[in-house]
């Protein structure tokens, strides 16, 4: 196992996210990098997971001779290797709302101290500085999956004290607020950024603890103070912050083979 020498932060984020997948369970992949990370995880780290998409692919195993990770959640190659294909009510209703999804993997424009995401607008909803594309299935995955893995470039404008618009609730305003809203507990949840890995201070999915994001591990050669600089609130740092194992040659090689067109990891995109 040789460490790779040359990789981007986005590649590092994907590799670390892929390593964070559980060994098994039902996983719903959101749009964007989660698809790439999920494919890498299934092929290398967590062959026992069942990958699903909101348009209706259930338990996808990458077919032999795979030439790319799926481009988006709607790539037709997801029909090849899936144990079942159906539709969005079956995926986001029956599967997800029915309580069958162990892990949702999401990206967004903003994440906040309580792990909530924003995919809809920057600024005030009624007079936004900028509209975004919209939430897609992000909202329901955050509301209804048993746990969340969020992938987010580490930038101060993205890591904010409070999201401009909470499209996708994690711990909302803190302990007890999921229950008060009518949601089930969520967790253990994790955020993987381009700088490190974060957990949340709650032992029971949001009922007690402060529920705030905590830096638990950093990327190779990353100083936690730099992470704080690119975080929009006074970030809490775990007592022991571990340094993550660098990506291996194999991980980076496979990752690049999975993105032959630069759809995900084109330089400068993240």
């Amino acid at each position, binding site marked *: 196992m040789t460490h790779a020498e040359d990789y981007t932060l986005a590649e590092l984020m994907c590799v670390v996210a892929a390593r964070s997948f559980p060994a098994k369970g039902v996983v719903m992949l959101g749009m964007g990098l989660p698809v790439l990370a999920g494919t890498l995880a299934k092929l290398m780290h967590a062959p026992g997971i069942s990958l699903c998409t909101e348009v209706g692919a259930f338990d996808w195993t990458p077919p032999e001779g795979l030439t790319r990770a799926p481009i988006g959640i709607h790539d037709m190659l997801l029909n090849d290797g899936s144990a079942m294909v159906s539709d969005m009510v079956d995926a986001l209703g029956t599967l997800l*709302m029915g309580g069958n999804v162990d892990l949702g993997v999401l990206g967004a424009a903003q994440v906040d101290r309580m792990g909530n995401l924003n995919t809809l607008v920057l600024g005030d909803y*009624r007079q936004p500085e*900028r509209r975004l594309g919209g939430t897609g299935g992000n*909202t*329901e995955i955050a509301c209804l999956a048993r746990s969340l893995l969020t992938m987010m470039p580490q930038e101060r404008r993205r890591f904010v004290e409070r999201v401009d618009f909470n499209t996708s609730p994690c711990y909302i305003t803190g302990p007890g607020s999921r229950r008060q809203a009518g949601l089930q507990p969520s967790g253990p949840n994790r955020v993987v950024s381009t700088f490190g890995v974060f957990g949340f201070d709650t032992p029971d999915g949001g009922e007690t603890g402060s529920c705030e994001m905590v830096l638990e591990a950093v990327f190779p050669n990353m100083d936690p103070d730099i992470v704080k600089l690119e975080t929009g609130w006074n970030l809490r740092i775990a007592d022991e912050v571990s340094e993550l194992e660098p990506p291996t040659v194999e991980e980076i090689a496979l990752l690049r083979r999975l993105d032959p067109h630069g759809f995900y990891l084109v330089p400068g995109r993240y």
Partner: protein
Amino acid sequence: MTASKLMSESEAIDRFVEDGDSVYVGYTSAAYGLCQAIVRAGKRDLEAIGGSVGPQGSYLFLSGCANLVRSGYVAAALRPGIVQDMMEDGSLKFEDYSNQAIALMLMAGALGIPFIPTRSFLGTDYLRAEYQEHPGGFLGDKKWAQMESPFDGQKFVALPALRPDVAVLHAQRADEDGNVQAWGHMGDAKWAYWAAKKVIVSVEEIVPHEVLASDPGRTVVPGFRVAAVVHMPYGAHPSGCSGYYDFDYGFQARTSTRITGSREAWQAFADEWIYGVRDRAGYIAHLREVFGQDALDGIRADAGQTPAGGVRYGYASQLRFRM
């Protein structure tokens, strides 16, 4: 037995899309050809509906045919440009839902029930009281309702049933009676077929009824619910159609994804690829002219699987009632 529902795209749009209609524009069954035909026909005051509204749906509002959109995701609003401007200046009114919401609302419409409960949206800002009247919205307080279950007090959000006036979808095949078969992941198409008051389907192939009847489990909607069938090879281009062709990312990069950047870019695209051609056959011919046959060869579905393992719908022709 019934009159053929097979017709040209222009006839289908003329007869079954009316000014003011709400139009489901597809997602994984993206009806690019039919959406372009609607633009060509100059329909007005339409509403575009879809869990996610892709470029084909945006054609409707970029062209001025639609001034409303109800969706969980508007791809053309992802980056600054005309669509963001339209949402800001009020020329495009919008209601923000989610993919699950639109799919469930279509299901409720199909089922003929007044609403459907969801546990999504709980805990989000969508439900904040001060956002219920949005200057850019058009549904007012009929957008959703927070309720509690009469059985256990569980909180939920009631989403109103959605019955688009018309749905345009693209599928793999149909017969002349309008029985449609489609396969691969279906997004919210299944429920749109059943929720819409009028269904217009473009298909890669018209096949004899016997082909469909030989495997009726593959049928997604029976002909009696379909208003028009249009034979339209490459009707989903530059989106894909499982078993026929893949997404044309090259074309999208050159055209679709850039068209919302400026009015000029949109107009140039529309003049060449919508108004500049007579129909989808003309569009494909023009695609060949500009990019060569390679444009189609390059997206050919050369990988993937065909059903293995015998399937038989069988019964006994003669039965014994007494032994």
